[in-house]
């Protein structure tokens, strides 16, 4: 127990800071992943053939590519690009993109591909009448999307997005392989120092399970809140 405690010789503080970074990487991936996923979903229903093909291609590609490959490609690719730009300006640098930024950007690209499926389903769940009513009120496309369709679609999308959030949370363990000091890496460091392999990796699994259980609890609350207008009085 003193191994994972907060006293001297315990790894409690590094584990805690690792957990914070884990949640940070996941939360940073969320806004772009959600927004970009919505754009992809809209693109998939677009009238333009080109836009449809591009969106479907994006969604299929990023669902097929391993998350780890996306992470490596973004991490090394962005660093490479910046070094190329800098050498164009005659500045020699070996600067690399911070792992947290590259990791959450890569995970948000994957999240967008999967969440576009959820958004697509949610948008399909909104009746035609809603669009027609918004149009007859004289609302423009973007305004009707923002104040009529999305608030309703969000409730339908919430359970699916919640599942994706939990997958995202577990996928953050992969960014330990590009040396981000998140939970998994902190555990690896502790293992390297103490050689207590089994206990520490078991502790790592349990740490993630706690995170996913907390997420499930919060998501359930959010779901209840989002559909509170549907609950009838007993």
């Amino acid at each position: 127990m003193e191994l994972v405690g907060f006293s001297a010789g315990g790894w409690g503080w590094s584990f805690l800071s690792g957990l914070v970074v884990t949640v940070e990487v996941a939360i940073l991936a969320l806004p772009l992943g959600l927004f970009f996923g919505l754009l992809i979903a809209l693109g998939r229903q677009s009238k333009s053939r080109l836009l449809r093909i591009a969106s479907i291609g994006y969604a299929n590609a990023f669902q097929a590519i391993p998350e780890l490959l996306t992470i490596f490609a973004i991490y090394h690719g962005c660093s490479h690009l910046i070094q190329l730009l800098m050498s164009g300006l005659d500045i020699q640098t070996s600067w690399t993109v911070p792992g947290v930024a590259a990791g959450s950007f890569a995970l948000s690209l994957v999240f967008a591909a999967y969440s576009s499926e959820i958004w697509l389903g949610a948008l399909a769940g909104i009746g035609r009448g809603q669009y027609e009513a918004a149009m007859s009120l004289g609302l423009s496309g973007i305004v009707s999307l923002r104040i009529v369709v999305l608030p309703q679609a969000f409730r339908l999308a919430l359970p699916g997005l919640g599942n994706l959030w939990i997958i995202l949370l577990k996928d953050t363990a992969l960014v330990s392989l590009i040396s981000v000091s998140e939970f998994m890496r902190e555990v690896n460091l502790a293992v390297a120092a103490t050689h207590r392999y089994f206990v520490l990796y078991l502790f790592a699994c349990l740490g993630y399970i706690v995170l996913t259980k907390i997420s499930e609890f919060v998501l359930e609350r959010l779901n209840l809140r989002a559909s509170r207008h549907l609950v009838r009085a007993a």
Partner: protein
Amino acid sequence: MIMDTSLVVDNAGRLYEGFKLTLALVGLSAACAAIVTVPLVLGLRSNAWAPRAVSGAYVTFFRGSPLLAQLFLIYYGSGQFRPLLEYLGVWWLFRDAFFCSVLAFALNSAAYTAVLVKGAIDALPEGQWEAAAALGLGWFATLRKVILPQAIRVALPGYGNEIVLLTKASSITMAVTLYELLGVIKVIYSRTFDITIYIWAAAIYIVIVSAIRLGFALLERSFFRW
């Protein structure tokens, strides 16, 4: 962008080795997962609380934590039980990264598959069981002749997804010194510092996953033909 094919051509042999390893990992893990799934589904659907609790805890553990952590737990964690494993005569298995990876993937995938199959069986109307009972079929005959043929049709698309996820997940074995397709690609990158190899890698994975999806689409068609 000009794609330089020499990068792939020069490393074709290495890539092919990695591809074969990926295939072996996925195939073997999926087969073992299918075996583990059976007792899990029975446990999850059991009327007694003890099997339900055990399989429920199993599913929570393997679905609630990252596969990478589970792989580390099995590969590195087993080293601490070396005397016991040597005594049991299975140490040579746990020393092997390939075996540990297959074990981790199979145990993990079985948890997801069990939930999938349980859902498919639960989705069948109660009348199916009652009708089978009225015909005098036993429990096993009901399962084999009535329930499973219908449940498989419900579960098949989800199972295809699970195999795709397993294929993608197999790319993490480089963390335990096992260089399958993505591992080989990472090695090529660190030798050449040529990022186009990642674009090739993405293309290769898209082809593999498309092939799996096509295979399952054909399989589904043969199950849905009536």
